[in-house]
């Protein structure tokens, strides 16, 4: 039995310590946006943030989570609200700028990879709020254990989504 911090909430977990975070999130905690893609850290469909750093939940045992906070796409709105110190009223119903940008730019085709894409772009923008297209490509290709793969070929849309997200972040911070 251990306790892990997921999207701002402390959650008790019964799974054994070697269980990958992905199975714990999906089966025990009902946190469903991290998707099973390969189980091999080769595709990025299961990406989550661990204290702001993107990791592959399919190969991260819960023992390795420790006291670090897990953030999934479900937790992105609250993460943004807390970073921006938004009042509760305006935080409710507000999406993270990356999510909003993904809708504005109609980024997904099938969309199964986009949770991992949004997690990775969130990580990027938290460190580099004005990325070049090359920065975005590098983040999604060479910065992690593997490239983030999109089979539908939505990479052009993802680039536009990331740039739109950067604009929204800048606007949000300017408030």
């Amino acid at each position: 039995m251990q306790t892990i911090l997921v999207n701002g909430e402390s959650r008790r977990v019964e799974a054994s310590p070697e269980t990958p975070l992905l199975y714990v999130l999906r089966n025990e905690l009902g946190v469903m946006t991290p998707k099973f893609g390969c189980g091999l850290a080769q595709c990025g469909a299961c990406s989550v943030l661990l204290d702001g750093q993107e990791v592959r939940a399919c190969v991260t045992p819960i023992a390795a989570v420790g006291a670090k906070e897990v953030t999934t796409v479900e937790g992105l709105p609250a993460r943004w609200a807390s970073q921006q110190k938004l009042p509760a009223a305006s935080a409710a119903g507000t999406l993270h700028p990356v999510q909003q940008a993904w809708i504005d730019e109609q980024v997904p085709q099938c969309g199964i990879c986009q949770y991992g894409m949004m997690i990775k772009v969130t990580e990027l923008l938290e460190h580099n709020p004005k990325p070049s297209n090359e920065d975005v490509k590098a983040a999604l290709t060479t910065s992690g254990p593997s490239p983030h793969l999109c089979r539908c070929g939505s990479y052009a849309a993802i680039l536009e989504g990331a740039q739109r997200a950067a604009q929204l972040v800048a606007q949000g911070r300017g408030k």
Partner: protein
Amino acid sequence: MNAPDTVQPVSAVLSRRGFLAAGGSLVVVLGLESVQAQSKAASTSLDAKQPASWIEIHADNTVWIRTGKCDFGQSSIFTAYRQAVAEELGVTFEAITEVVTGDTDRTPDGGGTFGLLRTNLLNLRKAAAYTREAVLDLAAAKFSVPRSDVKLEDGVVTAGARSITLGELVAGQDLRLTIPVSGRATDFMGVQVQGNPPLKPPSSYRIVGKSYRNSIIPPKIDGTLTWVGDVKLPGMWHARVVHPRTLGSKLVTAGTVDAKAYPTARVVVIGNLVAVVSPNEWEAVQAVSGLAGTTRWSDWKGLPGHGKLLDHLQRKVDWKEIEVAPGAANKGDAGVASARTHAGTYFMPYLKHAPIGPTVSVGDVKPDGSVTVHTHSQNPQYLRGLLAKMLGKSEDDVVVRTYAGPGHYGRSNGGNAGSEDEAVLLSRELGRPVRVQWMRADDMQWSTQSSTSYADIRIGLDESGRIVSYKADHRGPPMQDDRPIGAVLAGLPTIEPPGPKNPFPLHGARNNIADRWIYGAIDNVSEHGHGTFQLGQRESPIAVGLRDHSMRTPAQFQQNFPRETAMSEAAALARADALQFRLDHVGEERFKAILLRLREESGWNTRPSPAPTARAAGKGVVRGRGVSLMLRDNGYWACAAHVAVDLSTGVVKVERITTVVDPGIVVNPLQLRRQAEAGSLMGVSEALREEVAFDESGITSVDWSTYPILTMGEMPEVKIVIAPRPEVGNYGQGSESANALAAPAIAAAFFDATGKPARRIPLRPEYVKAMLAGRPA
């Protein structure tokens, strides 16, 4: 209930089944004859309170549409379908608040998710037109005015100064509009709407043609949507399957799981289907390794291996077993004398659909024998029929519920993607819901593939460099094996594998000419398709071998790559510019228009290939450009690729890809652009990276390192140019053409850059180095 009060607009029949204290609706239902033909299916598996209508108008002015098609990322169901119905019916886009998709007990029409803008869109447009006419009749009666005085716009019916909303018109009533249909929901093509209700002229369109957003995107992005892999049922167990060691292995003895380490895991064996089940998914994942390690299978070798595939197709396959398919455009004498001749052999490897998420389904067989499968299918009604056949049950007992899932690009347009039947069989065995999630290797090794193909092309030129003859012989295995693999492994009834005796034409083994002929200025044309059986299937003791299934632009991709690549080489032989050469030989003006537009938009440099800078030896990078052309489903497509070839490493980089499309009527420019961009990039991926690796026993591409696809870092600049022609009055199709155009344009660009032909894909360094050295790749 009151006696039906019936009026008859066109050949649809409106009936008032009663009056209601609250609510009210007009629902559009299947024609009576068809309902009877579907026997019990219509009465037992469709909830009578939720009729499987095409269109429903509610008292609150909302409109629902229902379609048996599913969304795989195309968006059409949530955008184009809404737009077309709103347009034909006369309501706003926003009034259509719900699109019910896919579920066999909640949608009317069946049929596969393909040709979305072709027959399927026409079904909905006709249903909407019948509905509009019925509404106009109702309103004319209500206002006691001639019908010609009534009009319907934005959901409001007006007659002079009087007006009423659609909701008000149906309030308090239970109205049924019965429209004539043919076919059965569980037919491969589903149900077709009959008759010819008046359709609005495209010139009057106000909703079709606008860039509406896709309504399924917000619930995906905010995480509220239930995907197929997210389905959880009470008492559900998790399964992992141990697939046979080879594509022809029979089970010798099933292995065991370590009961101490995995106390709740159980082994289930049904024929050659071996699985481990557990209430705990991670336990099933861990236990399956031990089970696989201790399970013994017979050995089998019966495949050529991918390295010898072309040689096998050329020398070992008896192409006389299957009837030859002549092209529809064949004319003249392709053996006519020519001054010069280009001849080449072109080869496409097997490709994987390779969804990012491996197939996953939940089967739920109830004690009363009813079966529900929760899955992600491109043809849920056909899957329903396949599952009923496997179980020896009536289709009435089977319901298929569908969910969002990973795109798999045609793999399930014959119903199954892989896991559905296994989930049902394991659920029946356990008496509880079972979720089967294939692992990455299962999906790579046990799913179907897009068939290999090769072609011999001869293009004869006269003294002036004009084409006098075109001859093509395309050879390859069939592409539509719809047998559920779990049923095959379990030894249960399935439809026949593809072959000449299979009664359904799409399941025959003929290799029809799918690439529409476009070079109308050529007098002598001879195209033939030569089919065969799936490789290894007849030899496999379990009748498996390399199973194939259609994948984006099926067969047309395999035939267009040889034709278009050869056309670019023939242009070089004629010392003509490859784009101008096409302009000189296409028949239709629409092709000329998109080629001229492509020349302008792509920065095309008009000159013969190879480029003046072309070389194949030494170091450094050489650059070139190539063009390709396709007619698919009334969509006119042209593509230019600009590539860079690193002569030392053999790495080909696509720097820019430009696509021009004239689909006739453009329903939604934003969604078309997104689909075509993505299609282009999938095409670049296939051209540069993809090939199914296999040895004599089975597929050795097991993951993303052994089946690499394009990464974002390798993406070219993508430009999509939409050139609408609404005046032609028809709807051309979406993204899959974009995907097929990339490979021939890239191969031609490689030839332009290096002077060496590229007659196969993928342009991976190992093949490129052979091409540069003039060796067979």
